[in-house]
């Protein structure tokens, strides 16, 4: 026998009320926790892939689309730009480095991106097997791609035209896997990397000769040398079909737009949590009224006022602990479902379900408020007139 056991059994006496309080709190905590996890995964994904990319040069269109397509590879590109025009920008004194990208094909839904070694170096990608691609049609496979498709060094495959569609297969151009990358938890995990010349070769018609000045690429990831680049480069490219977008600003705008929805959901979740705390209060208060005689009885058997108070506090604590724990479990289930959708759609891995610092805070707060909700009727219990209560029945 213990206070804990007694509190546990008391909660079990009113199963419906206890279940309702638990579900309400679990739902509220679960929703807040899921939002926290989603925001964390989103910001981690953004931060990991944005590293040191100050500007993205690409075809005119939506700047956000330019960023999403060329930094995160989750959207279609805005179009192509001429390599010679792009090189002018890369060679600008305000620009320290420019990483050219060209793509338009996929293998089983994973993008084949043509670039140079600096792209892999930029994300700190290391080889797990094999070597870096040098010759045309050699590819280095990202960790996630290798894991999903089973591609390994020495394997060959055909690419399909488009970024997801697998119907228009270039059966005349064979790619060979020369290397597999170790996991970097960045965008390169879900890409197949080859040279830009390979991308051109795939799309050149048989015997077609294309003037080098007409060669096109999709985008260039730029790192600035001088902060004035942000103001200067747009003027440099004004007369071309190109634009530059600032990832930091576009992502900030995106998260702000997301934020409105997130804040609405957060408000709803907090409201549900408030209702659940009210439910705990009602549950404990109702128990107090119904069990006034029991509490008086405990006092006659030697329990101090503090013991009775502790019992009610434990009931509230158990409810809030159970609800908050269930909530965190629910949020993990929610995240895993969401991760599967993200995985299917965008190839990003969102399955990290570790407990965030903010979730510990949420957990602690839920238990604290639950205890407070129980403390109010608990204080009333301290004032019970034992003699009168026992004489009333």
């Amino acid at each position, binding site marked *: *026998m*213990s206070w804990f056991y*007694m509190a546990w*059994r*008391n909660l*079990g*006496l009113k199963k419906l009320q206890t279940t309702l309080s638990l579900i309400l709190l679990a739902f509220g905590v679960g929703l807040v926790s899921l939002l926290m996890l989603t925001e964390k995964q989103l910001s981690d994904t953004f931060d990991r892939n944005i590293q040191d990319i100050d500007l993205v040069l690409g075809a005119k269109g939506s700047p956000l689309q330019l960023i999403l397509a060329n930094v995160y590879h989750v959207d279609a590109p805005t179009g192509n730009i001429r390599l010679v025009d792009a090189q002018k920008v890369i060679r600008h004194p305000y620009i320290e480095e420019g990483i050219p990208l060209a793509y338009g094909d996929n293998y089983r839904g994973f993008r084949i991106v043509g670039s140079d070694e600096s792209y892999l170096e930029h994300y700190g990608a290391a080889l797990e097997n094999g070597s870096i691609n040098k010759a045309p049609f050699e590819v280095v496979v990202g960790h996630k791609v290798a894991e999903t498709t089973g591609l390994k060094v020495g394997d060959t495959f055909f690419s399909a035209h488009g970024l997801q569609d697998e119907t228009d297969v270039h059966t005349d151009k064979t790619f060979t896997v020369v290397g597999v990358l170790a996991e970097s938890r960045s965008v390169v995990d879900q890409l197949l990397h080859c040279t830009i010349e390979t991308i051109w070769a795939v799309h050149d018609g048989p015997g077609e000769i294309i003037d080098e000045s007409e060669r096109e690429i999709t985008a260039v990831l730029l790192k600035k040398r001088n902060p004035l680049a942000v103001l200067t480069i747009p003027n440099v490219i004004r007369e071309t079909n190109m634009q530059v977008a600032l990832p930091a600003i576009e992502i900030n705008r995106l998260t702000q737009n997301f934020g409105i929805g997130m804040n609405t959901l957060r408000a709803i979740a907090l409201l549900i949590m408030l209702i659940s705390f009210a439910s705990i209060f009602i549950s404990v208060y109702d128990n107090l009224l119904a*069990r006034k*005689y*029991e509490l*008086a*009885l*405990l*006092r*006659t*058997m*030697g*329990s*101090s*006022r*503090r*013991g009775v108070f502790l019992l009610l506090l434990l009931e509230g604590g158990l409810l809030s602990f159970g609800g908050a724990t269930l909530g965190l479990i629910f949020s993990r289930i929610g995240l895993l479902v969401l991760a599967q959708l993200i995985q299917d759609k965008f190839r990003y891995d969102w399955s990290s379900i570790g407990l965030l610092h903010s979730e510990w805070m949420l957990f602690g707060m839920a238990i604290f408020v639950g205890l407070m909700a129980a403390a109010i009727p608990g204080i009333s219990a301290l004032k019970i007139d*034992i*003699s009168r209560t*026992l*004489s009333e*029945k």
Partner: protein
Amino acid sequence: MIACNDIAFQYHTDSPVLSFPNLDCSKGGKLLLLGNSGCGKTTLLHLMCGLLRPRQGKIEVQGQDLAALKGKDLDRFRGEHFGIIFQQSHFIQSLSVLENLAVPHFLLGQSFPKTKALELLESLGISHKAQAKPQALSVGEQQRASIARALIHQPSIVLADEPTSALDDDSTAAVISLLEEQCAFAGASLIVVTHDQRLKSRYNNRVELKPSAS
């Protein structure tokens, strides 16, 4: 063992003062407090175990003046020295009968003698209800279960408030005999507060309470 002298009690300043005759019950002794409804039987019982404080007079239990005890010391003293059987049976509804019997020991921080508890329930004829919830028991069974709970921790004094009010003649005799046996076995004093005239002949040491107001 327990002595009450010059006890007077008043619920509120504007309510009548209840005066009680002097009482004395020795260790292992028996005392019957007989009186009709409204004469303050339950009030006196609550005064004796410290649930109420007298306006005047002194209550001594095993040489301890109850007025000198306060707060948790008084709570513990009550738990340790008294076993109380109420007119209406009160239980912790979420616990089984056996678990209810474990509560006094838990509150006193003592280990629960489960075998002894089962034997006690057996002697009261309700061992088959040990695992049942109190609400599943009949009124008579509930009364027996509350007797078991009052005796389980071997208190010095057992206070029984109308213990036989819900029982028929046969059960009354059986329950009172058992109560007396158990108290005698434990060396506990038994104070029975009742209006049940059937018990009058069983007790030599008895006090008849009369309504008093001043």
